[in-house]
Each structure stands twice: as structure tokens, then as C-alpha cells.
């Protein structure tokens, strides 16, 4: 198939960007969106032009590195998929496709479609961990019994790949779905409960400091999340934060 592309080009964080028109011909319907972008970049390099910068790593839907806002939605039109798992058969011959970076104040554009999502890492550093000694002796996984329902909910929350699609989808550029998943995956388990109060307070603090927007319960995040993190996690975050604010741990 032949496609017209409108791609955001921006030299660096401080320069002004704009949408530029491109054409790619003979795109295989079986290729992924990233492979189509590779094809375009090969042609640009052959012509001596600057290839389009975009993030990617595993290309199998597990690392969360690929981003891009495609035709008005993060990761494109297909629900429950990352951009690397989006296939060109979802588009039609002659389509015009808009390709933009994830947009948020907390995600500055590095170049073209690549944005800096380190703000999410700093939220994790603020409390998204359990302080245990991991050196040497392996602990028995079943030493502490965990109810099946809690284990399942924690596991579901832990599937968050940290892609930032929720931030990109949210009209407020809020990171609440991400933070709620990261708080939930730990606070549901006995090992995580010990530091639950400091964790939720510090992570929400960091989230606010990074300049993400507030949650209006719009729900666009959960609709667009490639792994299906649900709004129940945000409710849990709201509960955890309320109880951490109303009761002191020290």
C-alpha cells in the first residue's frame, strides 16, 4: 500500500517543530508500524536526509519504549496494542497518517517523535520499590501466603510497561494510571504494605513536582492503555493516599 504521512519534525527540545509531509510506497500490510517507519527512514538516509527519530526497543510489546501519537491516539487506532504491535493492515491504501510525539509538559521532545519519559523513572525512584536485601540468599517465594485475589490484582497492575501512553491520552496529561499501577502492584502484597504510606505520599509528591496534570476521571488512559490497566487502580491510589494523609506512620 502507498501512504501519506504527516510527521512531527523537531531538531531538539528547544527548537520549534512542525508537521512535515512524507510518502511511503509499497508498504507491506504485514509490516508493523515501526517497520513502516524504518522503510521511510531507509529512503531518507538514501537521499541524504535526516531520518525520523523515534523510540523503540523490544518490538514485541513488552518494554514500553515505542511511543508515537498516531492518527489522534497514542499507539494508534487499535486498542490494547503498543506501536510495535500495530500492523499496517489496520490502514488502507492511500491513507494519510498523522504521527506526533506523546505530548505533555513532563515529556519534553528530545527529537522528532522521541520524548524524554524520565519523569516516570523519577516517580518510581521516589517510592516504587520495596526495601529488602536482595544480595545473596534467595527467599522462598511461598514463605508468606498471599490470597489469590490479591496476587491476581497485583499481577495485573504489574503488567504496566511504563510506556506513558496514559499520559499521552489524558486531556490533562495526568500520570495517575501509571502511578496507580505502580502503587497497587506493591501495596496489595504483604512485602509492600510495610512502606505503603511513605510510598504513596512520595510517589504522588514526585508526580506533582514533574508537572503532570490532575486526574479528572476522564478514563481515556484506561481505554488507550496497551495492557489494559484499569481505573480501579486509580481508585485504590485515591484510597491509599487518603489513608496515608489521615493517619501518620511515625
Amino acid at each position: 500500500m502507498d501512504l501519506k504521512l504527516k510527521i512531527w519534525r523537531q531538531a531538539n527540545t528547544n527548537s520549534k517543530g512542525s508537521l512535515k509531509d512524507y510518502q511511503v510506497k509499497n508498504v507491506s500490510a504485514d509490516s508493523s508500524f515501526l517497520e513502516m517507519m524504518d522503510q521511510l527512514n531507509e529512503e531518507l538516509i538514501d537521499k541524504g536526509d535526516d531520518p525520523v527519530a523515534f523510540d523503540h526497543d523490544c518490538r514485541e510489546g513488552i518494554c514500553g519504549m515505542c511511543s508515537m501519537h498516531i492518527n489522534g491516539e497514542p499507539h494508534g487506532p487499535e486498542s490494547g496494542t503498543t506501536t510495535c504491535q500495530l500492523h499496517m493492515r489496520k490502514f488502507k491504501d492511500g491513507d494519510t497518517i498523522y504521527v506526533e510525539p506523546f505530548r505533555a509538559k513532563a515529556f519534553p521532545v528530545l527529537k522528532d517523535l522521541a520524548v524524554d519519559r524520565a519523569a516516570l523513572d523519577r516517580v518510581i525512584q521516589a517510592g516504587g520499590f520495596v526495601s529488602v536485601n536482595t544480595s545473596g540468599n534467595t527467599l522462598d517465594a511461598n514463605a508468606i501466603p498471599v490470597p489469590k485475589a490479591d496476587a491476581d490484582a497485583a499481577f495485573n497492575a504489574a503488567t504496566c510497561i511504563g510506556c506513558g501512553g496514559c499520559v499521552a491520552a489524558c486531556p490533562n496529561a495526568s500520570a495517575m494510571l501509571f502511578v496507580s499501577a505502580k502503587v497497587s502492584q506493591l501495596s496489595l502484597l504483604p512485602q509492600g504494605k510495610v512502606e505503603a504510606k511513605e510510598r504513596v505520599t512520595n510517589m504522588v509528591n514526585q508526580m506533582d513536582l514533574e508537572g503532570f496534570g490532575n486526574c479528572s476521571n476522564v478514563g481515556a488512559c484506561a481505554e488507550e492503555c496497551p495492557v489494559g490497566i484499569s481505573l480501579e487502580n486509580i481508585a485504590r491510589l485515591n484510597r491509599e493516599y487518603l489513608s496515608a494523609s489521615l493517619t501518620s506512620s511515625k
Partner: protein
Amino acid sequence: MSSVLVKFAETQNTAKKMANSGLLGSSIAKKYWMSLTGLFLISFLIVHLLGNLQLLDLSKEGQEQFNIYAKFMTSFPLIKITSYFLYASILFHAVDGIYLAMQNRKARPERYASYKPNRNSIWASRNMGLLGTIILAFIILHMSQFWYTMHWGEIGIDANGNKDLATVVIQTYQDGTAGLIMVLLYLIAMAAVAFHLYHGFQSAFQTLGINHSRYTPIIKTVGAAFSIIVPLAYAIIPVFVLMAKN
């Protein structure tokens, strides 16, 4: 010396963090207040509606009854205290809401050229600030027309010696073109309330962390019904008064 400075810097940092955490400035705390004040405003909507539906009886006795009710609402101490609490809630909800909406705008300085939000969310949820501002403008108009007049404005006295608020209401909505415009503004405001609550009702529970596989569907259904029925019932009042003109 330097250790004193470090200590000082640490205190400053802690102070900054404290200001942003707890139940004061954090993003989530601001939403708790939106939710609590919003739910209080919802409860007010029910009480206010039940009182004002009395205007559907425009007979002489009906009007006098309404004036007795109006006097009660402006003089009974417990209701007076509740009303001050209500004014504070409206103000707080509006200021907090507009502040949140401004922060949210700033969190995405550059807009998307291609943006298809209807694929992942409903319009009302994305326009709470706009809807709230319309409601606020209406509240100001509405209070200047009736609340202000009842307390300090020029107002007649009915057969029982009570301030004749019923006649003020009737004149407001029956007064030629001006009355028609007032009815129209009322209908626009009720539409805004409907959309505001279609999203806001269930949102208030989610904000407080109430999300349950059994109860949340019930909350959503009740919220949707409330958001349609209550504004509609309000809207009937000025339309009825206008049509009762002879």
C-alpha cells in the same frame, strides 16, 4: 557552618514537600475537596428542587404557600447555617475547579494536530471547567434575581404579610422578551448541570476511592438517571411559569 546551611536547606525542602502533600496542595487532595463539595452541592440540588416545585401551583394560595416557604428558608437558624456552608462550598468548588482546569491546561502546552478524544472518553468529562463556568455564571444571575431581591431588593408584600417572592419569580419569566431570554438561559444552565453531573456524579465516588465491582455500576446508573431527571425537573419550572402567562 556549612552543616547548619545543609540543615536549613533540608528544612526548607521538607516545608516545600509538606505544603504539597497531605490534604492541602497535592493534586489528589484538590480532587477530594472537589468531590466532597460536589456531593454536597448535589444534595442541595435535591432540596432546592423539592422546595421550588411548589411553583407548579400558581393559584393565589399556592403563591402564598411558596412565600411562607421562602420566609422559612431565609430565617430558620439551622437552614441559615447550612446556607452559609453552601455558599462556601460553591465558592470553594469553583475556585478549586478553575485552578485544577488551569493546571491541567498547562500540563499539555503543545496540542495535538490530530486528536480523536471521542474514541476514548466522553465530551462532558473533558469539559468540566467549561460546564462549571456556565453553571457559575448562572448561579450569579439566579442569586441576583431572587436571593438578593429576597434579602435586600425591592419586593412586594402578600396577603399574609410575607415578602412576595412568588410574584418576583413570575415576573422574571413572564416579562416579554426579557422573560423569554431568562427562560432560555435557565434551560442552557440546566443542560450544563446535566452534562456536569453525567460525568461528575460517578466521578466523585471514584475520587474518594470508591470503586467496587458490585456498587460502581449502580452508582453509574443512579448518576446518569439523576443527571437527566433533576435538571429536567428544574427546567420544567420556568417553562411552566412562562406558559401560565395569560
